[in-house]
């Protein structure tokens, strides 16, 4: 276990911190949006759905570029954050959280939306006619009956944020203990031809990602078996 002693785990800790905060924020912010999209028959729905799905198809450099412009001091958004909250979004951990929220948006919204859509409509109506409002229905009837979708949204968002690279490099750079997350650290090891460290970091990432996804699929399979018992 000698090799493990020389490893700096800070980039991993940063990655997981970023993923945790992003996942929690996205879950809270997009819960109403996903619910709205699942219930709405409005004409603007396809436009909102497209906006949400954009990060899947856009190159990370495009998202990174626009966020860079948006976060800069010259833009109203960037100066608003500095003046109002004293938060610098460019090349900072806070900026990474905001950027990750954009980048991982579809990975949270889409599973939640399809989870809500798969719910038996009359089950929700049964809750409404018994006097329960939308919020009670959401937390006591809707969410508990879509655990696989819920877990998929949370786990995939988390994993996707841990695996984020391009956007982070553009918006956050590579400041040690601030924005240098694991994926960026690997890139730098390769650049300086430190393949040993690159191997160790990549191996750890691969293992964690694989274990996370396997646990998710096993859980979802069990849930399905339970449902169709």
């Amino acid at each position, binding site marked *: 276990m000698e090799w493990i002693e020389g490893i700096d785990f800070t980039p991993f800790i940063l990655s997981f911190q970023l993923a945790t905060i992003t996942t929690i924020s996205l879950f809270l912010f997009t819960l109403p949006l996903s619910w709205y999209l699942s219930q709405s028959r409005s004409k603007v729905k396809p436009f909102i759905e497209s906006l949400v799905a954009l990060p899947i198809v856009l190159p990370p450099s495009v998202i990174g570029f626009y966020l860079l412009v948006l976060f800069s001091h010259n833009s109203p958004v960037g100066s608003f954050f500095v003046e109002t909250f004293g938060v610098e979004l460019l090349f900072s951990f806070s900026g990474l959280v905001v950027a990750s929220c954009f980048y991982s948006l579809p990975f949270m919204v889409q599973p939640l939306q399809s989870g809500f859509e798969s719910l*038996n409509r*009359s*089950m929700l*109506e*049964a*809750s*409404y*006619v*018994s*006097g*329960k*409002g939308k919020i009670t229905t959401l937390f*006591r*009837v809707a969410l*508990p*009956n879509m655990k696989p979708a819920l877990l998929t949204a949370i786990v995939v968002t988390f994993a996707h944020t841990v695996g984020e690279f391009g956007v982070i490099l553009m918006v956050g750079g590579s400041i040690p203990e601030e924005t240098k997350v694991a994926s960026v650290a690997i890139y730098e090891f390769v650049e300086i031809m430190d393949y040993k460290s690159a191997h160790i970091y990549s191996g750890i990432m691969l293992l964690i990602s694989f274990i996370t996804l396997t646990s998710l699929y096993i859980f979802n399979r069990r849930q399905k078996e*339970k*449902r169709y*018992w």
Partner: protein
Amino acid sequence: MVKINITKKLFGSIGDMELKVDTDINRGEFIALTGESGSGKSTLLRILAGLERANGDITVDGDVWLSKQFFISPQKRRVGFVFQDYALFPNMTTLQNLLYIEKDYDLANYLLNMTQLYELRDRYPQNLSGGQQQRVALARALMLKPKLLLMDEPLSAIDPDMRQHLQSEILALHREFQTTTIMVTHNREEVSRLADRVLTIKYGLIIEDRRNSTI
């Protein structure tokens, strides 16, 4: 007394039509609503529950539920509704399904005993038979002690023996609670056994309104 005078445009499987219902229902009456599928029966129930909008007026015991200016939300109407697919909450046991509606343990236990579900109170819906699920749905609908009980083909998926048994149960519960009830059904036997009055709907219009003489 329930006064209904509503219209609604329907785009059904048999083409566009107008649902037009103008009738009064006395307190405690048991109405069977019959007619071909797609004629607007279920829509009428959903309008009464507030799950769908319509033009016109609905008044229940003097309270306005629907008028030009008013639309009382389904939450405030507090009707009992038995859905065709039962719509039980899969994450809750039989007892929890009832208590979610109203935290009234005495009433829940009473209804569970009446519908012979007491022994099954800790089971989840997916571990109950169709007939048992139907009884949970019925008991759950009565938890609010509703002024109006609406049932959308509640026995359509039940086998004939169980059906008779459940009919007796529905009748017993109706006698006990004296709830004004509207039940959509295709089954003649059900109509003659349960209903005081039979309304037949065709293409959105009531084409027959008769007392049930067999009761």
